[in-house]
């Protein structure tokens, strides 16, 4: 088949050596012509048709970072030239995980497969290494929990590593889930208990992966377990140790809106259900045992060991699942919303904790009250159950998301949780006015649009127009915005402002990416191998991604992806083909394979 290869790039930032690939592709069998059309070419269909006709081409390969962009033009041209429109083949570099000019050989292989008319994923099948049947899951949020349970339920060993003292992740902090308004804890906690009790799951909390050796199928992982200083097996979470502890620290689990002690349990349903010591704040640890130690004396079970030391464990696993989740963007750097300056400007997570029945106000939505702090001798704003409920609440969407200065991408969940907030506010406070300032309403999932509709009908003021201005006049906060559909500039009183803050990869992503050799995409999330066809695999064989750490997604998608990962892992354990890295495949291997597939 007479084939023509055309190179068209969309993104001029990506530095792929097109010339080298073009030279290579010119030597492929049946390739008649190779042309480099450059970056963002303006394609004239007439000229292209002439070109195809003069070369008498039967097949066209468009190669580039996003060749699909130019497919319509080529299809039209080949039709005009009298050819078969199904013979326009795409050689997409981006789709197969080539970023910033990495892996020239793979790019060549992609072009080669396209010229043979063979799908790349059929020709490039890494494999061969025998697989250890144990699996390591990094991160025990809903994604890690789901994937662990799926694998463990199939009877395979799982090591579940979690950095904090409890599993559950962000979902444990939530009050309700959208769009069904189910109680998040009711869905999550049974799964957490399952994880805690499962004989096939080896749960390692307060632990971190520190190094990785070996090859796909048999990774040797070193895990550092931070000293919990409380014996998990002996502690019954009676809580006797908490009251005497003199140290008060902002609670991470409560998103900083309440205080905890230096010996604490993140929340009552934590798994493992045991206390832990915050060694960065514990007075005994900080003074090397010279001061304090009251908890030791109070503990009826003698399970506190303040002198416990960190340990490291070496394990060997066949597959690794990354489920490291996300973090909120640091919103204090976006100063126009007054976060940190005005007391009642909250991030979404803070509000989530405020409205949660297990939160510091018992689920009452109140504004902060001023309280005198004896230690610092200053007034500070705190949430207390005696606070007044807000009369007017503004919810601002897209804070830091879809913003070229912070996150260019959409965080995907903010629209829906903001609508959920409106519902919770309306449900808990009578006659509250809720203003949603949005840019575009992204209610894309099953039942989401209906949910948005329901919130609208509940009487929430949904304003098409983003606000960039929260100000304070006297004691009253004002939110200024443009009501675009109504063609008015508006200014509302607000007693509380909730910022739908964008999501960023969790802080350890960078380190893990380097340690494991997994690529990250332009926004810092882990790169999947192929966005459409292989959304759970990574470039590196035997390492998978699940949940938010791949890209922002909601809970249903996260759970689905976690289960999908488990299927991939279990498949690699049972199919007998072994696993290998995509990056270890050589060009000639793929070529050979493509030729055989082509011959079939």
């Amino acid at each position, binding site marked *: 088949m007479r084939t023509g290869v055309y190179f068209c790039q969309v993104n001029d930032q990506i530095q792929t050596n097109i010339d080298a690939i073009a030279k290579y592709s010119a030597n492929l069998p049946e390739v008649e012509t190779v042309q480099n059309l450059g970056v963002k070419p303006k394609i004239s269909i007439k000229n292209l048709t002439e070109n195809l006709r003069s070369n008498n081409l039967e097949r066209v390969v468009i190669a580039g970072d996003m060749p699909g962009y130019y497919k319509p033009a080529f299809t039209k041209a080949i039709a005009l030239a009298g050819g078969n429109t199904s013979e326009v083949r795409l050689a997409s570099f981006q789709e197969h995980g080539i970023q910033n000019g990495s892996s020239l050989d793979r790019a060549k292989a992609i072009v080669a497969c396209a010229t043979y008319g063979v799908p790349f994923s059929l020709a490039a099948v890494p494999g061969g290494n025998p697989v250890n049947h144990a699996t390591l899951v990094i991160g025990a949020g809903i994604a890690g929990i789901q994937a662990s349970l799926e694998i463990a339920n199939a009877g395979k060993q799982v090591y579940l590593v979690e950095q904090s003292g409890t599993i559950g992740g962000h979902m444990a902090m939530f009050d309700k889930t959208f769009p069904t308004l189910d109680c998040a804890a009711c869905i999550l906690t049974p799964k957490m208990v399952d994880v805690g009790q499962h004989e096939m799951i080896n749960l390692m909390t307060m632990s971190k992966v520190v190094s990785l050796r070996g090859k796909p199928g048999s990774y040797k992982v070193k895990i550092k377990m931070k000293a919990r200083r409380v014996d998990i097996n002996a502690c019954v979470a009676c809580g006797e140790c908490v009251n005497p502890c003199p140290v008060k620290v902002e609670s991470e689990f409560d998103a900083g809106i309440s205080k905890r002690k230096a010996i604490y349990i993140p929340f009552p349903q934590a798994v493992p259900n045991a206390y832990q010591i915050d060694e960065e704040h514990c007075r005994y640890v900080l003074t090397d045992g010279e001061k304090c130690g009251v908890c030791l004396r109070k503990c009826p079970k003698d399970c506190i060991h303040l002198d416990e030391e960190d340990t490291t464990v070496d394990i060997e696993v066949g597959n690794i699942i990354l489920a490291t989740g996300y973090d909120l963007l640091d919103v204090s750097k976006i100063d126009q919303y007054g976060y940190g300056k005005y007391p009642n400007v909250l991030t979404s997570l803070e509000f989530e904790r405020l409205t949660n029945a297990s939160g510091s106000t018992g689920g009452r939505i109140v504004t902060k009250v001023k309280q005198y702090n004896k230690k610092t001798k200053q007034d500070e704003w705190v949430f207390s159950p005696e606070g007044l409920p807000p009369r007017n609440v503004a919810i601002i969407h897209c804070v830091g998301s879809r913003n070229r200065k912070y996150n260019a991408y959409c965080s995907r969940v903010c629209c829906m949780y903001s609508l959920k907030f409106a519902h919770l506010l309306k449900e808990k406070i009578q006659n509250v006015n809720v203003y949603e300032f949005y840019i*575009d309403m992204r209610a894309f999932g099953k039942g989401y649009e209906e949910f948005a509709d329901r919130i609208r009908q509940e009487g929430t003021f949904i304003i098409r*127009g*983003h606000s960039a201005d929260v100000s304070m006049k006297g004691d009253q906060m004002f939110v200024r915005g443009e009501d675009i559909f109504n063609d008015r500039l508006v200014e509302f009183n607000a007693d509380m402002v909730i910022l739908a803050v964008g999501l960023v990869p969790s802080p350890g992503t960078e380190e893990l990416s380097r340690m494991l050799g997994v690529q990250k995409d332009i926004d810092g999330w882990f790169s999947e191998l192929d966005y459409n066809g292989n959304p759970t695999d990574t470039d590196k064989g035997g390492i998978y991604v699940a949940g938010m750490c791949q890209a922002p997604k909601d809970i249903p998608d996260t759970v689905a992806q976690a289960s999908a990962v488990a299927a991939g892992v279990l498949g690699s354990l049972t199919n007998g083909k072994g696993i290998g890295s995509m990056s270890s495949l050589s060009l000639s291997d793929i070529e050979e394979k493509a030729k055989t597939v082509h011959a079939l």
Partner: protein
Amino acid sequence: MAIRVNPSFIVTLDKYGAEDVQLCYQCGDCSTVCAHANEIFKFPRKSMRQMQMGLEQKIETTIEPWLCYYCGQCTEQCPREADPGETMMSIRRWLISRYDFTGLAAQFFKSKTMELLWVGLIAVVTGVFLVMYGLSNGNIAIYDGVGAFLPSTFVHSFDLTIGGIMAFFLLINALRMWYFIMVKGMEIPVPWWLYLKEFLELPVHFLTQKRYAECDDKLDKKVHMPWIIHFGLALGYVTMLILVMVFLVPLQAGPEINWSVHIFGYLASIGLLAGTIYFIRHRIKKDEIQYQKSHSTDWLFVTLLFFIVITGIAQHIFHRTGFHEWANVTYVVHLMAVVPWLLRMPFSKWAHIVYRPLAMYFAAIQESATARQQKFDDTLSVTIK
């Protein structure tokens, strides 16, 4: 009335400096932070939308671009980096070319070469004419009095002629601006007496440019530096224009300094010099948003003015210190820059000296008219009830 859409409008505006309009996703952040946007005049978001939609005829009749003083807040806030501030600036450039009936302004804005060619041509013609005149009637060694190379009475009438041509074009353009904004663009009736009622706005804004000062509303800084500098520049400019057009004869007399006239000249020169240096410096440094993107016309505007001020000061010094030949030479060079500068005025950014106060005046009338209409509508709805 249906509005015709011009799909390639946005491409046209590209030449005027609006490069990133398509990036805008209409969040309204810019309107929110703008100190000048209010209930009646909402911008820059709306202007961005009109551009995206290609509503050329609508933008032609809008006053909003003239109410923007480019403090850069909107551009700083813009989550899309669509640069609303520069877009408003570009619409102003385009509006200047729309008000101009000759089409010259459009050429100047679209083509740097065209503009330089025109300026150069007029400069050369002026220079040749002045030198021929000087050589035929006077002596290069005499600056003023009998046998002067360029006698003050001659220069005075020359100035008045050039000024007259400039005023003629400017007046027509201003009339066209009035027609676009107040006739074509008004959907509600404007009674004639509103023009009288709001008339004071015109001199007030012309002399104080006080809306520029209001730009700092949202800024932490108490004083809006660009406004002060601009105020000094404009004041110096108008003073100098009056001196040249009315008091040229005593101004040129010398060599002793006639303080009753020259003191104004000195003060005006200080304002002009400080202003042009400030703006050139910031345009080079690009340290603030409003100076980051400079259109070729912006450069010509500041550099030519700076050149005029420098040569003007130089010929004055040469004259007073006895270098009469040098004084005459720099005077010719000075006028070679002044004439294209003046003739270019109705077709360039320069014209905002007239359009800005007019726009404030029209805006005040529109606001009054809208309020009046609102009142009228209210009474109507009551009677229906």
